[in-house]
């Protein structure tokens, strides 16, 4: 075996030949340029896969923008936003489009960052000058983008739940989900009135959503004269919450409340059972969305309740049809919190564009603001003066031995 003289594995000579104790694949000397080219090729392919494609609108189409998470830890809900909008786009176009023109939705990635969300909005607005845009279901991104929306003066719909968005008083922004305060209030009221909680323990994700919802819940308990056993938090990327669960039990909690996102919600459900903590457990909607339910067993769902935005009523033919086609097309179930409202919202906007045209964003904003009792797949939408479109949440539990959900109680937002 010949070895180049500069090879670092040189050992000695055998007759005329340089020999070495080295392995055949060490003969493979990849040049640096080859590697650099490879790295750039991979990067290009990845960027191409994540890109938003051709942007410009032709005369026979209406183009709107949607900024949702397409990479990073928020992709799970971002995919639901995107898939639901894609299905709505296909359905609208299959039924003749909007005013005879095809609808095209251009997506831009907000990742898990507020600045990326703002940049995505600005990019789409400058590239497309659309009459309308969708924003993500993350409140911090919605809050960060609000000034840009106000400046652009086009209506947008979003699904972040925080009251911080409505407090901005931006007349161009419309929420298509119930707000987090309503969900948090429903959790607390359900724990007291239905589960007879006397010393509930609250476990919440340590971010703006979790802290606000935990504070609302704590306040409702206080108003009802119930003293909480304790409050524990965990980081958005934490995987082991067993110490927090044990801590709440040790503090005397008789009911656990979890303010969670999907994956951590499923982890907590599993860890409660792993620890043999036999307490009723009430979760926010994240823990009961389809992606979270896929991660837990029916046994782990026993004695567990979820406050959902809604339970899709598949006895209605149109709901069953959309759910079935969604699952077939995207190989995942339609999420009632992060998927179905975007489908409904696109239908509302399509009707609005049909009625007021694409040249008058202010007229479209007024159209949306005046939507009353629109029966969608997920909710009945009525937009109020704060831009809130949904005013009810549902408490659900799994039927024994299954993951099939049934409604336990519905809460309506006070007038």
């Amino acid at each position, binding site marked *: 075996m010949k070895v180049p003289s500069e090879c670092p*594995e040189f050992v000695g000579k055998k007759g005329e030949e340089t020999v070495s104790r080295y392995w055949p694949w060490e003969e493979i000397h*990849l040049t640096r340029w080859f590697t650099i080219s490879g790295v750039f090729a*991979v990067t290009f392919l990845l960027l191409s896969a994540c890109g938003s494609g051709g942007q410009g609108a032709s005369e026979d189409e209406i183009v709107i923008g949607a900024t949702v998470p397409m990479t990073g830890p928020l*992709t799970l809900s971002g995919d639901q936003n995107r898939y639901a909008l894609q299905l709505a786009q296909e359905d609208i176009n299959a039924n003749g489009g909007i005013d005879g023109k095809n609808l095209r939705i251009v997506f831009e990635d907000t990742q898990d960052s507020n600045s990326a969300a703002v940049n995505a909005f600005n990019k789409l607005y400058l590239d497309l000058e659309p009459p309308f845009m969708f924003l993500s279901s993350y409140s911090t991104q919605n809050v960060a983008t609000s000034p840009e929306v106000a400046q652009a003066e086009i209506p947008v719909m979003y699904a972040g739940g925080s009251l911080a968005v409505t407090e901005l008083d931006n007349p161009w922004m419309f929420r298509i989900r119930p707000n987090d305060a309503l969900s948090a209030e429903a959790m607390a009221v359900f724990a007291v009135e239905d589960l007879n909680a006397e010393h509930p323990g609250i476990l919440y994700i340590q971010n703006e959503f979790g802290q606000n919802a935990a504070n609302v819940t704590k306040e409702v308990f206080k108003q009802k004269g119930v003293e909480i056993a304790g409050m*524990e938090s965990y980081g958005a990327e934490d*995987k082991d919450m067993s110490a927090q669960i044990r801590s709440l039990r040790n503090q005397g909690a008789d009911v656990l409340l979890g303010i969670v996102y*999907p994956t951590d919600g499923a982890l907590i459900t599993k860890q409660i059972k792993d620890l*043999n903590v036999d307490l009723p457990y009430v979760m926010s909607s994240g823990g009961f969305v389809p992606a979270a339910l896929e*991660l837990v067993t029916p046994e782990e769902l026993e004695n567990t309740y979820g406050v959902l935005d809604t339970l899709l009523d598949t006895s209605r033919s149109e709901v069953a049809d959309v759910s079935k086609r969604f699952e077939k097309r995207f190989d995942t179930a339609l999420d009632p919190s992060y998927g179905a409202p975007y489908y409904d919202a696109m239908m509302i906007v399509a009707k609005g564009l049909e009625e007021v045209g694409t040249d008058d964003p202010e007229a479209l904003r007024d159209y949306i603001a005046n939507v009353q009792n629109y029966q969608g797949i997920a909710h009945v939408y009525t937009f109020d003066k704060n831009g809130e479109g949904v005013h009810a949440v549902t408490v659900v539990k799994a039927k024994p031995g299954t993951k099939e959900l049934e409604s336990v109680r519905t809460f309506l937002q006070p007038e």
Partner: protein
Amino acid sequence: MAQLVQTMVNGISLGCVYALVALAFVIVYEATGVVNFATGQFVMVGAFLAVSTIVQADMAFSTGYFVTLLGMLMFGLLFNMLIYRPLRKQPVINIIIGTLFVSVILQNSALLIWGSGAVRPPSPLSGQEFIIAGVNFTAHSILVIGVTVLLMAGLYLFLYRSSLGGQMRAVAQDPEAARLMGISASRVFMLAWTIAALLTGVAGILLGPVWFADVNMGDPLALKAFAATIIGGFGSVPGAVLGGVFVGLAEALGISYISSAYKDALIFMLMILFLLFRPQGILGEKIRERA
């Protein structure tokens, strides 16, 4: 008392997970002097290979784990050949930046291949648990602790009692002198990356059923394991395990007796204290001793 013991058992189990990943940091550092910032993503790849074999291809546990580890072995070889080898004559900082770049590529590739949702691969010991004196043990957590101890012992014997392990440490100490002694640096590097990939593969297999396989699982895990490596002592196999258990216990006890809100702050404060007052960690060599 049972509560304290339960907290400590959970802390040790959690710490063993960090220790497994910390061992992968150590083996690469011992051979190459490089801190591999893609270690967390190596674990993620291992976890998803287990998902592909056991969940998607419906293989038996033994076959699925074997194929997963075989896949990780190939992954380690490829990483060495395509990433480390072309960069190895560059300054160490360039290689470290390279591993950071690779971590992003791996994460985004996994997103395209396996999707954004978490997956829960089954455990061969799922549902089995024991309650001894009021303390709850799941069979899987005992498996994690047992495998960590076995791997630590095996790695220790390999690094400090075998000829190849000696060569590995010699290359890390002084590659030039090792080369003049007839040691094949390329082979040592290849071996180090392969062992690191196998270790992270084992970590991925063990972690999937407990924490779910998730494309974003790598970074938070690697961050804690990195803290464990610093606290235990960079370059020390027993130190990595000790550091892992230390971090796991600090986390569990911190939540139970201080506040869950400050648990990460507590761990990283401890890490900074070690860097300030005992930079070599509990069992590691002093940094200035490395050539």
